[in-house]
């Protein structure tokens, strides 16, 4: 019954070449720092591995590049912070639901983490609920988490309140973790800045924005759109309005820019993912940015 995780793996292999996946794997492995000197074992070099970790002597003996693995590097914590409000049940830029993309992102990162022996935990919440799942290292644990996310996010669910969830994360998370926030095209507010800042001093924070659907009608788009917050439809007349479209485009670009600059000024790497096809590439860029930002 590992449907969701299998779907994640399938999507990964569909949307990414084997090499990309290896790169992603190596990228994930190298984002951790603070490794201990307790040597664990040797393994074959993967593209993306830090060159510093290559055990040259062992490499000379075995004819393949080998890297040293340390015990500490196997016991990282990955915390997935997911917005479980009804915003995530809305459609994404691609027309898929944001929930699907969020599960894919969470699944890919979780899968990478479990493969590296890391423990993955979940914290999701909205205006009414807050649900956390303890860290676990198994794929079935990851599958359970993905299932919880899938079940929890619904259109009938409470409003989204990511700031509140992040505030809770600041209070709850004592153990140093890699925190991946799976959110959407939020407005960058003061509260968000404060919570993220606090979270980032203790933990490493990564930010994934699931791109929200375009509200304007372009290219003869006749879809009916309904706002999940208000339940009110957006009349096609308004969605076709040229002046409004211009203002909307400006405001959207401004909003994204503020989010990006805000996160960057905190030192948080971020990526915006609009569809499941671009998820692997997006995550790869995210990990890369994170690694660069740190060094």
């Amino acid at each position, binding site marked *: 019954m590992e449907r969701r995780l299998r779907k994640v793996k399938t999507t990964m292999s569909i949307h990414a070449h084997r090499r990309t996946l290896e790169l992603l794997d190596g990228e994930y492995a190298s984002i951790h720092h603070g490794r201990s000197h307790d040597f664990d074992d040797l393994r074959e070099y993967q593209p993306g591995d830090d060159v510093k970790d290559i055990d040259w002597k062992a490499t000379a003996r075995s004819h393949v590049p080998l890297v040293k693995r340390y015990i500490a590097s196997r016991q990282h914590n990955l915390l997935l912070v997911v917005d479980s409000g*009804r915003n995530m049940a*809305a459609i994404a830029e691609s027309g898929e639901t944001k929930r699907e993309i969020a599960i894919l992102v969470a699944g890919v990162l979780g899968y990478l983490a479990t493969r590296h022996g890391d423990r993955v935990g979940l914290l999701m919440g909205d205006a009414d609920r807050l649900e956390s799942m303890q860290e676990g290292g198994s794929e079935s644990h990851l599958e359970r988490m993905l299932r919880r996310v899938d079940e929890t996010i619904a259109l009938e669910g409470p409003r989204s309140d990511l700031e509140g969830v992040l505030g809770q994360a600041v209070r709850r998370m004592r153990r140093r973790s890699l925190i991946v926030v799976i959110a959407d095209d*939020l407005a960058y507010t003061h509260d968000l800045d404060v919570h993220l800042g606090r979270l980032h001093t203790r933990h490493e924070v990564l930010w994934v924005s699931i791109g929200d659907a375009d509200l304007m009608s372009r290219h003869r788009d006749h879809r009916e*759109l309904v706002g999940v*917050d208000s339940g009110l439809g957006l009349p096609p007349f308004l969605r076709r*309005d040229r002046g409004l479209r211009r203002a*909307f485009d400006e405001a959207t670009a401004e909003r994204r820019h503020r989010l990006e600059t805000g996160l960057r000024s905190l030192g948080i790497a971020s990526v915006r993912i609009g569809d499941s096809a671009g998820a692997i590439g997006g995550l790869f860029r995210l990990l890369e940015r994170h690694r660069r930002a740190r060094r």
Partner: protein
Amino acid sequence: MDVTLLWPWVLPIAIAIGLLLAALGLWLPRRKRDRGLPVAHVDRMTSLAAFRWALLRYRLWIGAALAASLVGVAVAGAIGSRPSGISANHEEDYKRDIVLCLDVSGSMVDVDAEILGVYQQIATQLDGERIGMRIFDASSVMAFPLTSDYDYIAGQLGRYQRALNGTLGPEEQFNYLAGTASGLGASLVGDGLASCVLDFADLEASERPRSIILATDNVVNGQQIFSLPQAGQLAVDNEVRVYAINPFDFGGDMASQELREISEGTGGAYFALDFAQTVPQIVDRVNAIEAGYIETPPQVQVIDRPGALPLIVLVLVAVVCLAAWRVRL
């Protein structure tokens, strides 16, 4: 012309239906509002100043469409209730047939000429009437048949009048008495009247009022095929009214008495030509009596008068279409 509503109940029904549809039109979209793809962060759009303007314009368009359709329904209802005017067409229908039946025995010539003179004047003002003429003495001769060719009638009447007066020009000399003397006797009134009655065309089919102006002194001299009462009965059978003009009524003589009875028995009248009555007066009175028969009741027509209302509906429908297209309801 006052305009009344023929079906006034249509208007409130149309307005009620229009209001109902408008209410439904406002209410139904509200219900299906939650249909459609869910999108998050609608405030990305709704918080914009441009959104408020666009929304205002949107509402104005919808309001305009709604108002136009409501007014359109009301106006259509007004048309549906059939604004109509009543016009009474009182047509003076003078479509009668007249046969001048003139006794041309020597004693009657002056009176005949006078009658012809009067009808000559009348013929110039006629429309739709037909006039024929027959003269009789011992036998009867058709001077001209029933016709509505008034120039011809006037010409013939003038010709006979001049012949009777003896004032025919040298070019138009004719013997107006030709054919009137082939019977046995003179002034055979019964035969003359009977043949005049039979002069009317389509006795069975025609609905036109028929009358005969009979000028005679009823002094019969000879053997008649039809007696005067028989001729009168023939007239009654064929609904012909006989107006008799007698220039020699001395009061109470048998001939005048008989003529009076016969003519009045047909529904016509009897006129003694004396100092009290001239021929034109008699003809006026005949026409007055005839008017009672031929007067048709005024034709009451109810005519729909929607006026410019259909045009207004058309314009309003165009406005609604424009708004619907613009707003893509």
